[in-house]
């Protein structure tokens, strides 16, 4: 992936979101953030409509879902929604835990990778391989 790729970052943790945004910005990416699935989906659709779609989405798992309720699988649901709109979209699912089965679930929903938060420099390397 190019260094100036357009990235959508959806995470409800303000600190995590801002920290990751800074890391991605420093790496040269064009970063847009959202604090929940609804606003993330809205941002994604808006970009699609404007003809400047996102190249990559980074989605947290546990956050308010499309109905506005706290949901440990909110990220997976948003993932399916985004892939439905753009089947070729590259998506990385972010989580705070080492959960193999959930990772497999993300892969089966066409995520390109599943990333355990806390090691952002490795995330940059991962994004560049996608």
């Amino acid at each position, binding site marked *: 992936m190019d260094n100036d790729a357009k990235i959508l970052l959806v995470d409800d943790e303000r600190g995590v979101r801002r920290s990751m945004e800074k890391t991605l910005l420093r790496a040269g990416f064009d970063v847009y953030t959202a604090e929940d699935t609804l606003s993330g989906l809205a941002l994604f659709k808006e970009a699609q409509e404007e003809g400047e779609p996102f190249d990559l989405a980074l989605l947290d798992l546990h956050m308010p879902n499309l109905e506005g309720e706290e949901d440990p699988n909110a990220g997976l649901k948003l993932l399916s929604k985004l892939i439905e709109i753009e089947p070729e979209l590259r998506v990385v699912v972010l989580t705070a*835990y*080492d959960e*193999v089965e959930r990772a*497999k679930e993300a892969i089966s929903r066409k995520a390109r990778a599943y990333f355990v*938060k806390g090691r952002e420099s490795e995330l940059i390397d991962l994004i560049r391989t996608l």
Partner: protein
Amino acid sequence: MDKSKLAERRAALLHAGARVSRNIISILDPEELLQQTVNIICEEFGFYYSGVFLLDEEREWAVLQSGHGDAGAAMIAEGHKLKVGGLSMIGAATGRNKALIALDVGDEPVHFKNPHLPLTRSEMALPLAVGDKVIGALTVQSVEEAAFTEDDITALQAMADQLAVAINNARLYTENHELLARAERRARLLEAAAEVSRNVTSILDLDKLLHRMVDIICEAYGFYYAGVFLLDKEKEAAVLQAGRGKAGKVMVGEGHHLKVGGLSMIGTAIAERKARIALDVGEEAVHFKNPHLPLTRSEMALPLMVGDKVIGAVTVQSTEEAAFSAEDISSLQAMADQLAVALDNARLLQELEQAHAELVRTKTFEAIATATTEAIHWIGNKALPITVSVQRLYDDLEDVPSMPPDQLESIHEDLTLIQDSARLIVAVKEHLIGPAREYMPAPAMIEDVVKDTLTAMRIPEDVAVSYEAKAALPLGIADTTQLSRAIKYVLQNAIEATAEADAPAIDVVIEPKEDKGQLYISVQIADNGPGIPEDEFNKIWATFYTTKGAKHAGLGLSACMQIIKQIDGKIIARNQANGSAMFELLVPVYQGKLAATELPVSQSFLLVDDEDAWSRFVEESLVEAGNTVTRVAEADIDFGPYDVILVDEVLEDMNSIDVLTAISKAGAGPKTLVVASNMRVERMMELIRYGVRDVSVKPYTQAALAEKLR
């Protein structure tokens, strides 16, 4: 006989009659009365011999009760008796209720020639009767022929009648006395039974109830000792719960217990579920000779039964032989039955209370665990950006053009402190929350999990590791990823413990083990470090306890315990004979049935793995199903000819990444399955990028293998 002699004789007879009358009034002991009577007859009348016979209970024999002189004593010692209605004079007198007199015994056909009384020439047998009922007879014998005068006969018959009344009265007195004693005893037993009933319903304290029971039994029945035994949890031994007196107290204190089915009466009564009674314990094979109860001569062991279930037994002991009447046995068994019901009710209540307490504990624990998890989750997530931010600050510092070296060093120091703390918080989150997530227990080859963990850890070369897995180990039940994590914690501890050893060594032994009836696979990890200090044993499992300094969260063993408890296993720490530590993980043996399954057939498999228990299992299973299997442990081969490639993620002498690179290059990814005994997300993502069909936890049963290959 002249008149003066006659008068003298009559005076003697009156005198003798008066003495007998006085005796009858004053002597209460029937035996002594009879003896005195025969003595008076001989002394006052000048007869050779006199004796009193009484009929036995069946009224078949007249048994000699007292006899004058040595002859009398000798005959009593011999148990001299004569058949009622038989040929002897006593037999005839008692049979017919009629006085018989033989004035010349030589001519009298009914006389029994008694070797103890060779000089007898005259004999008189006078029935002892009360009304029409004969109770015995009096014999009077003389060395003279025709010795008895009419006066003698009259006087002696009067004496005999008096004696009969006295004997009868004495008997009635004894009978009445016995009846009274029996009535009193019955009243006492009824009172005891009533007290037991009151106690079993009113005393809620089991211990107090049992002690009161043994006191009631001993006080009401007058027994030497009573004790209550209850079965232990394993139902292998009966443990004394309460015992009468000092002996009981000492035995309870000593933890006195008897083996069920053993030689003791209690052990036998419980095993056979029926009362055991030893009336003379010296001759009873099953009696347990108890040094605390040396005087026991009779013992009774009554099982405590509730329906068909035996819960213990009561022992009752007496210093007398044959001490227990049928009434005692039935009333004591009734008490034992009541006690058993009370004990069972108390046990049920206790279980209910325990279940309730457990429920409250569980709920409290769940609430605390949930709150803790939420809190740690929250703190951990907040701490996540800290490490990254600090890294950015490090990077930024390098771009700061000029800064005094002292100041730069100080900032670096502070950043390191912040980063260490943040990393610790993140590690705590992973340790505490990690084991509880995605818990998926399944049948597993524990030896394979241990071996893979050992191999993947790449233990420093200076640490000598010995690994021994006993042959044909059964499958355990575990979440292998979590178990691997626990094993890794323990191995890491062992490596750290041997840091100061001259020749660091770790010994791993895996073997089957039975503990309290439960089957386990025991994983023993021993090191040659300094061991665990005695006062640390209870602390090492506590969350946040560490002896390794501030950078350690102290969560390793606590998380280990959590993982092992999750599978109902055990983890034990102890020091070996040489003082070094050993940790033993007991993983429960899988008890379920291994379902019949349909594996693929007529396929060609490539198995990339070392020669080990798991590869043998896969190879044998697939070949048996009609497939061909080639096992290799290298990357430089032609992957083309195979239908399915199975790769073990952990290989002893090479990195599985090299194998996957070769597979990927050969375009064989889509037919490749990677398996691992423990799986982490990052590793899975790394492996899946080689285009393989799946990366998953290793299958350890044919059903799981079939599922992976489907």
